[in-house]
Structure formats: structure tokens, C-alpha cells
């Protein structure tokens, strides 16, 4: 995603209370819708955001409901040279952990929990955790929208899993 074609970001400062999850999901979902994602994809992107925020509340802030979380959402409108897409940055002041320790459990070993990170990685194209300077963590997630009205990108042509992508205009 090139910074040049980004639209203005939407910024939200909220607190680590699960009551805000729904509003945050609706906001990111309406943005995703606008930059070209279908209903199902919007719902999945909202899910990835929700999982990220839940993890901050649970693991980062130990369920305290009054600590800050900052969301920055960059919508990227499609144009001649790029697919549309969305980039989401989530920051906190919670305890810093080594990004390499943030990973999900073996999916074959079914038990409650351990799914959030898997879901984020499955849904988004890119998921990067890092320590912020000073305090807290930063998570960047991004995803490009498909362009069903154009030729598919090289390498996706033969997958056949998405009939819309196989159509050539």
C-alpha cells in the first residue's frame, strides 16, 4: 500500500472496555465496504479488529476497562494503478511483549481460546506486532481488496476459488 494513494485516516481514541467493540467494528466495516470489500470480507476485517482489541484488553491490560486504545484506519480507494484496501493500526500503553511470542495454538488441538491471532492472520494480508517507543504495543494489519471487474493478478488466475476473479473484462 503506497502512502501516496491513501485517503485521510480516521483516528479513534477509546478505552479498553468491551462495550466499544461493536462501535469500532461498525466503523471499520463501513470503511471497508466503501473501499471495495464485499459484505463477507467487511465482516471478517471487523472480526480481525475485534480480536486484536480483545487481546489488548485481556492480555495487555489484564481486563482493566479504562486504559487507552488508539485506532488509526487508512482507507485506500481503488484507482487505475492500485487495488483498494485498508490499513489498520492499533496502539496501546499496555505491557510490552516480544512480538515473536504472540502466536496462536495448534488448531488441531481444540480447546477454548487461542484463536484470535490465527483469525487475524487468516483474514488480513499482513499482521505485524511491534513494541512502541517507550511504552505499549503497536499492531499493523492491512488487506487489499480484490478487483472483480479486472483481470486477476498473476498467480491467482488458476486458483478457481473465486469465480468473480476469473471473469476478465
Amino acid at each position, binding site marked *: 500500500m503506497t502512502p501516496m494513494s491513501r485517503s485521510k485516516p480516521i483516528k479513534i481514541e477509546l478505552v479498553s472496555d468491551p462495550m466499544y467493540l*461493536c462501535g469500532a467494528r461498525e466503523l471499520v466495516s463501513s470503511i471497508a465496504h466503501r473501499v471495495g470489500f464485499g459484505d463477507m470480507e467487511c465482516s471478517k476485517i471487523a472480526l480481525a479488529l*475485534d480480536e486484536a482489541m*480483545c487481546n489488548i484488553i485481556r492480555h495487555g491490560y489484564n481486563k482493566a476497562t479504562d486504559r487507552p486504545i488508539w485506532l488509526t484506519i487508512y482507507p485506500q480507494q481503488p484507482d487505475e494503478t492500485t487495488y483498494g484496501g485498508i490499513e489498520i493500526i492499533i496502539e496501546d500503553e499496555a505491557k510490552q511483549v516480544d512480538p515473536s511470542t504472540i502466536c496462536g495454538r495448534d488448531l488441531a488441538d481444540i*480447546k477454548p481460546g487461542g484463536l*484470535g491471532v490465527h*483469525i487475524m492472520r487468516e483474514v488480513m494480508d499482513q499482521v505485524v506486532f511491534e513494541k512502541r517507543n517507550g511504552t505499549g504495543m503497536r499492531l499493523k494489519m492491512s488487506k487489499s481488496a480484490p478487483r472483480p471487474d479486472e483481470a486477476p493478478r498473476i498467480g491467482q488466475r488458476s486458483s478457481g476459488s473465486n469465480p468473480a476473479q476469473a471473469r476478465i473484462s
Partner: protein
Amino acid sequence: MAAASDNDFVRTESPETGVVILVPTADIDMSRSPILRSAIKSELKPGLDRMIIDLGEVQYMDSSGLATLVEAMRIAKSHAVPLHLVSMTTKVRAIFEIARLDAFFSIKDSRQEALDC
């Protein structure tokens, strides 16, 4: 557009003796999973013939909802009570697929199918 009030978030129905149907009526996320969890815990008792969780009114579920259902499945197994999830919307089914949990549960298209099986 406002969330359904949390008090009536889970509807409980019993169409016949020994059968309990739980119907969550809105998005299941971290703020509502505990309500579903306690409804399950209070209804899922040894001796029950069948529990059905009807997800037809749920357009969204996150991993806290999945965890709640995985836990319910374990309790059901330990009590030998058949537990079925029915009427999943396509978006909720997609979440089960992402988490590779679609084979772990008994997922039926309709209540009737879950009652007949």
C-alpha cells in the same frame, strides 16, 4: 441499530420436555459471551435429552463466542447430552471455518433437523 438490551440477549425455549433451545439474539462478542456462557451453564444439565443453540439471529461472532461454544460442547459431552448448533448465517459459518471448528460441532441447517437426528 442499537444493540438489543443485554437482559434479553439469550431467549430460552423448550418446545418439548427434555429439549432446551437457546437463542442468542444479537452479535456474540467479548461483551456478551459471558451472558451466553451463563445461560448455557444453567440449562445444560445431566439428564437433558438435547440442547439446541439456534444461531439464526446472530450476524457476528468473535473468538470469545467460539470459546464459549467449545466449552459448551465439552460440558455436553461430559454429561452425554447431544448439543447441536442450528440455522447459522453465512457470516457466522465463515468464522467457524476460519477457526477450523466446523467439523468439531454438530451443525444442522434447521431446528427440525436437530430435533429429528
